[in-house]
């Protein structure tokens, strides 16, 4: 026989101003099974809690109903109090007399009646409550970091330095990402590679980091603390254990005219290659789509010249699986090839280039060793035009957002140009200058005031070529829309930042959400910027939206802190509000017929198959089972189950019916 205690809170005057709390307590005391029913001004206060605890002890209560505010606010408070008094915390329920009643109704008898009904419903439910225990899930204290740009590097180092194992997966032959391609960085003009390469080396040498380059995530199963990641190690055709990185192979490779990805097509590479001299690991891979051995069946020059016999043409892709506790997604972004701007002639005129191509021209490790030269004829451009927002803030072309970094890198480009070409003239066509960041505005002013970059406020309508010059037709809106025409030698488009190739596919593999532009979605735009809506998967850097280096690094450390926080416990504690497949009487009996409709309905892949065996160990039946680690307690499976074999713990069908009947019968 249940002994329920009802505790009605006035919440100061929040509830009592419109609800007659004394009457509620009085009426509740008349309900069968209610042992004690009292009201009090502040039930959450110490005396209020003490009142509950004492009632439990003195009256031997089997259940507690607190009629007060939102359970979001104080359910943990009252459950803890019950627990301290020796009652299972899940035998304590809260009904919300404040948001659901007093705040939304006028003072009156009907309002009080509704409050009484709410209490009556919950009393009936609580009578059917069963003691529950929170779920404990073990944690594999190993993190998977996807993407080896500055975000992935920073996150890996932070997690590894906290003493945890990290697996870093990078799809390209080297880590470093876009940052390794940059010449100098705003607003300090630090050499990008000089500050990045030490970090890259640190990653490679860190005892807690396992680095897989030329590798991709193939599959991710499991749940927070208990993921299983399958990683594809693409065949490099070079055995990294034997290779010494001497470089003879790529100096002898006869296929030399492949546009270099690292140099954004402004330089060439061979079919067996390392992307750049400071690559980590500094060992080559063979690009199978361009290697003549793979395409035509002959050559093998690299194999002949390799002094250690490291070339292995026949090795297939390998797959490894790892048990992982958390994932950090740091897959970065891509720079849009502005082919959809036919009016700017990208792709048609060689001297119309993207901002990232300009980075390579300005970089000391680039194809021109840092000298600004026209790709068409190698001459030094004396007049250069930078066009901001080439793709960004352009709903007509499909990208309404601001790419955030272009204003700054364009100012930097113009500045670098002026530093390198002293008699050169530079123009920046812009709409707004977005320089919000520490020392950013000052940096742009420096470009304008000290380096003499001509900023023209207006968008360029078109660019065409005449007599080896690029005619730029722009406008000065600050002069009331006066057309401006510039005969330039080179045009640099500040092309938009877009989601990286394969972002959508990766998101689907990991079951995380993404926005219409394929950038990964954070769990909350303000308060959970590094979490995704899948527990245990975090994100950082430009895979979430275009962002600059300091912001990326900050976010990477933030994601690492979340992982380290998760790993600070040996197990995870979760609310037991999860689905369970009914088991009646003995263990062998389940009403589940094994149709697995629940499996198709479950959005969290929480349904697994369980084989029921007889004593001889033979399988007699396969039924559904819920993995409590994955189940989010949404209840979809319950409504799908034809044999009514699944229930949510704490919210069983029986309990729900009892609540409904209580209000109908009243």
């Amino acid at each position, binding site marked *: 026989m249940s002994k329920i205690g009802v505790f009605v809170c006035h919440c100061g005057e929040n509830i009592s101003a419109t609800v007659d709390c004394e009457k509620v307590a009085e009426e509740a005391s008349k309900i069968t099974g209610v042992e004690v029913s009292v009201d009090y001004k502040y039930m959450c206060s110490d005396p209020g809690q003490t009142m509950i605890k004492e009632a439990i002890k003195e009256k031997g209560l089997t259940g507690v109903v607190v009629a007060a505010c939102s359970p979001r606010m104080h359910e943990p408070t009252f459950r803890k109090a019950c627990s301290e008094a020796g009652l299972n915390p899940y035998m304590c329920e809260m009904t919300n007399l404040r948001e659901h009643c007093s705040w939304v109704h006028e003072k009156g008898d009907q309002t009080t009646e509704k409050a009484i009904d709410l209490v009556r419903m919950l009393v009936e439910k609580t009578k059917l409550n069963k003691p529950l225990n929170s779920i404990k899930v073990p944690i594999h204290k190993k993190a998977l970091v996807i993407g080896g740009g500055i975000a992935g590097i920073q996150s890996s180092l932070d997690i590894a330095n906290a003493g945890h194992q990290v697996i870093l997966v990078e799809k390209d032959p080297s880590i470093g990402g876009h940052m390794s391609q940059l010449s100098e960085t705003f607003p300090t003009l630090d050499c990008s590679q000089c500050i990045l390469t030490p970090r890259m080396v640190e990653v490679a040498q860190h005892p807690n980091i396992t680095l897989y380059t030329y590798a991709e995530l193939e599959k991710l199963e499991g749940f927070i603390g208990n993921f299983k990641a399958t990683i594809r190690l693409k065949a490099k055709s070079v055995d990294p254990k034997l290779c010494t990185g001497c470089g003879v192979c790529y100096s002898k490779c006869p296929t030399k005219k492949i546009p270099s990805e690292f140099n954004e097509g402004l330089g060439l590479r061979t079919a067996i290659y390392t992307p750049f001299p400071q690559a980590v690991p500094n060992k080559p891979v063979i690009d199978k789509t361009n290697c003549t051995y793979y395409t035509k069946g002959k050559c093998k020059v690299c194999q002949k010249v390799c002094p250690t016999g490291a070339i292995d043409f026949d090795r297939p892709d390998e797959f490894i699986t790892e048990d992982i506790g958390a994932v950090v997604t740091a897959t970065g972004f891509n720079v849009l090839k502005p082919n959809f701007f*036919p009016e700017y002639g990208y792709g*048609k005129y060689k001297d119309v280039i993207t901002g990232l191509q300009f980075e390579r021209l300005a970089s000391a490790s680039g194809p021109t060793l840092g000298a600004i030269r026209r790709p068409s004829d190698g001459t030094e451009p004396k007049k250069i035009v930078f066009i901001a927002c080439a793709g960004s803030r352009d709903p007509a072309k499909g990208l309404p957002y601001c790419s955030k970094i272009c204003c700054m890198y364009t100012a930097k480009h113009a500045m670098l140009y002026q530093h390198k070409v002293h008699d050169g003239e530079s123009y920046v066509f812009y709409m707004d200058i977005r320089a919000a960041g520490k020392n950013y505005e000052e940096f742009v002013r420096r470009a304008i005031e000290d380096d003499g970059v001509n900023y023209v406020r207006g968008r360029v309508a078109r660019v*065409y070529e*005449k*007599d080896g010059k690029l*005619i730029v037709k722009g406008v000065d809106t600050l002069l009331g829309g006066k057309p401006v025409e510039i005969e330039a030698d080179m045009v640099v488009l500040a092309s938009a930042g877009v989601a990286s190739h394969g972002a959508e596919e990766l998101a689907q593999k990991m079951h995380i959400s993404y926005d219409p532009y394929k950038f990964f979605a954070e769990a909350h735009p303000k308060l959970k910027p590094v979490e995704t809506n899948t527990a245990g998967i975090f994100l950082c850097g430009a895979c979430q939206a275009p962002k600059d280096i300091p912001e990326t690094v900050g976010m990477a450390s933030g994601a690492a802190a979340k992982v380290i926080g998760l790993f600070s416990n040996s197990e995870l504690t979760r609310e037991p509000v999860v689905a369970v497949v009914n088991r009646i009487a003995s263990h062998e009996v389940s009403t589940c017929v094994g149709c697995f409709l629940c499996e198709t309905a479950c959005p969290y892949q929480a349904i697994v198959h369980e084989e029921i065996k007889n004593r001889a160990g033979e399988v007699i039946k396969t039924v559904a089972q819920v993995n409590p680690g994955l189940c989010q307690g949404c209840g979809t499976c319950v409504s799908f189950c034809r044999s009514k074999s699944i229930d949510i713990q704490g919210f069983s069908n029986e309990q729900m019916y009892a609540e409904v009947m209580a209000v109908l019968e009243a």
Partner: protein
Amino acid sequence: MEIGFYPGCSLKGTSSEYAQSTLALAKAFDINLKEITDWNCCGATAAHNLNHELAMALPARVLALAEKDGMTEIVVPCAACYNRLTVTQHELNQSEELRDKISEVLQMPLSGNLQILNVMQFIDKYITNRIEEKVVKPFEHKVVCYYGCLLVRPQDILKFDRLEDPQSMDTLMKKIGADSMDWGYKTECCGAGFSVSRTDIVAKLSGKIVKDASDRGAEAIIVACPMCQSNLDMRRPQINSYLQMNIKTPVMYITQAMGLAVGLSKEEVGLKKLFVAPTFA
């Protein structure tokens, strides 16, 4: 084979050579272009500058007449007429209310299913596949193709070629042996309707076009629009005086160039009607 034909006013007057060469070219490929019975002016820029409804009703009558003649397809060489007819048909198809209203004004039914072809689309559909075998006198000249505004814009309605750097004329010219060059003014405006009212503007805008063509060594500017042609050709004295130059680059219709290539005579394509005479051919 017989296809409907809407010459429009210009082709009956100032640009009679365009009509002449189009008809002759079609005939050379055994195609008879049949004029729509009792057609009227499309209203050109004047109507939509002054009265939106009239701008719909005039072209709508032409479409209705063509349908009445039992035509399913009409060739409209004039770019302005092509633009007005296509845009009108699109707008009428978009709004039933507007179509009913215009239909009432006309007292004629409108199905809205007529295929409207500009001259390149016509050539592409009926002539291109036979052109190479028919070319007897390759048009081996350096040319620039001038598309103007009306053939390509608005793209979402006309759905013809790309907006920037269109290629359809260039492709055809290359097929008859021409060296069709890239240049800067393919789709810039020539001044269009200001031919009479603001000759100064025409001289300036057309001047830029003619100059760029001449600077690049073009032997001819190839056009498909009578307004562009008359601005660049008939207004040449004003253009030259604006530029303070004496540019003699002729402005030919694409149908004239193609006609010559397949062996039609200068007379048959109306070459003599050009103000600025081509030095070749």
